């Protein structure tokens, strides 16, 4: 239970940590688009996935994320993989048959489709982990707020939304601590959170959720009062303690990321096939 810290911000001072959160958010989206592009044939797809994985692994090394944490996060994927495989085999398919169980044909296509989805998922999770463990949640909301700025013209409450997100993020650990505390208090009253019949489990959860909600509401009221007492006005203009600054490394990283995506798009659009090229050389 205490391991929900996966993907949580880890304060190091690496190159990636120092990058501007706006760039990191943009980079995440760009690279994700790259992951979803399809190529000429199967081996080409795997080659590009491999290259992207090497890139992400390098980013993880630079930002000092342990591969162990990534694998821990992937554990839950097994259910999804089997589920996807089953769905993909049921859906009508064509092409070469890999093997058949009785009259049931399993096509190579189905297996590859499943593999693609799994690889994409793994890559996306790894990428997101790089972002969340190198960027403070608050910085991330500032970045989101910055991207939403153009919508201010149509009276979109940019600042309010950013504030709501940052408060929500800020209170996740607090509420988690609170949850553990209430769990312990109820365990002292004989609640068994681990085993028991379904009806007992439901009761156990009710005994946890009701106090949790009450204290969350209380907290939010206190927070609102404290903010008002300090003169908080959502529509007011304010400065920041930590100002986001765009520096040279950010520009370099931006060029790199955009270049990478264009490269991937070009490879896909021109239907480049590395395997064929290498084959032609010999």
């Amino acid at each position, binding site marked *: 239970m205490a*391991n929900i*810290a996966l993907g*949580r911000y*880890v*304060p190091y001072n690496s190159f990636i940590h120092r990058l501007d959160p706006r760039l990191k958010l943009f980079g995440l989206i760009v690279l994700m688009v790259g992951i979803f592009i399809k190529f000429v044939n199967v081996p080409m797809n795997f080659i590009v996935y491999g290259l992207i994985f090497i890139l992400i692994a390098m980013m993880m090394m630079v930002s000092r994320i342990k591969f162990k944490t990534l694998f821990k996060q992937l554990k839950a994927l097994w259910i999804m993989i089997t589920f996807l495989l089953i769905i993909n085999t049921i859906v009508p398919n064509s092409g070469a048959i890999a093997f058949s169980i009785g009259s049931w044909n399993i096509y190579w296509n189905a297996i590859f489709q499943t593999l693609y989805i799994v690889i994409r998922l793994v890559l996306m999770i790894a990428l997101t982990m790089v972002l969340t463990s190198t960027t403070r949640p608050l910085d991330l909301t500032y970045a989101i707020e910055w991207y939403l700025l153009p919508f201010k013209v149509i009276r979109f409450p940019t600042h309010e939304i950013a504030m709501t997100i940052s408060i929500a993020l800020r209170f996740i650990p607090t509420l988690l601590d*609170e949850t553990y*505390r*209430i769990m*312990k*208090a*109820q*365990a*002292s*009253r*004989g*609640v*068994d959170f681990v085993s028991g019949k379904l009806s007992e489990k439901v009761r156990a959860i*009710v*005994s946890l959720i*009701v*106090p949790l909600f*009450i*204290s969350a509401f209380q907290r939010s009221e206190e927070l609102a009062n404290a903010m008002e007492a300090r003169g908080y006005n959502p529509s007011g203009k304010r400065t920041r303690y930590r100002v986001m600054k765009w520096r040279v490394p950010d520009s370099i990283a931006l060029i790199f990321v955009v270049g990478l995506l264009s490269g991937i798009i070009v490879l896909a659009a021109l239907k480049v096939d590395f395997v064929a090229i290498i084959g032609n050389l010999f």
Partner: protein
Amino acid sequence: MGIHFRQVSHQYFSQQNSDYQAIYDITLSIEDQHEFICLIGHTGSGKSTLAQHMNALVFPTKGTVEIAGVLVSQKRDKKTDYNRLRKHVGLVFQFPEYQLFEETVEKDIMFGPLNFKVSPEVAKEKALESIRLVGLNESYLNRNPFNLSGGEKKRVSIAGILAMDPEILVLDEPTSGLDPQGKRQLMRLFKDIQEKTNKTVVIITHDMDLVYEYATRTLVLSDGNLVFDGTPDDLFRREELATWSLSLPQTIRVLKGLKEQFHLELNPYQKTVEEAVREIEKVTSR
């Protein structure tokens, strides 16, 4: 039976920060009758961690705790029902009002006993018994716990633990957030409960006045070490009080001050304000 700590250490593991050792090598025994123990120490000295070991909410990382004859060690034994131990040792958390969740006080008090498979009729009786024990009358039983005042909520949640009829009652800072009068009332209540039921009561507190007045035994933790185990009379005569970040109770401080200022021949070790007044009168009337 009681609780026996044998060289218990506990370390908290953390992913981001370095690991933190809360208590070191603690050996002590708590009987399940007649004791009124105050557990004191500065913030972060490991009091709460020690208290949570007493009903197996937290497992030692080294050493063993024996609770009501059941051995609790680092390894979780699948066959042992640790839940059962919580019936023997009732632990009331700091700000216990956060554990209330039922729509009536009676149901909330009955929640604990029902979890330990007591029949609803008996649980109802227990609820009535324990609401009286904490100094409220039965008219409270049908009220909504969320409409009570802070002090009343505290009493109701303590009644919820008392209804489980534990042999040992452990309270983590039960008096925090109350006014001085409320504190005294609550302490008197615990003393009362202890005398009426013969249970052992363990209280974590920062209030030296209450410790001196009520405790029969004090345990002092300092940086996770058990540095003192004895009567409060002994404790407040110790030289090391300051190094343990403890202060003297009001009565001793005032009387010591008077003694030095006016060179009076009085005994500063008086437990209550009344006794202190009597001592001063005795000396001044001479």
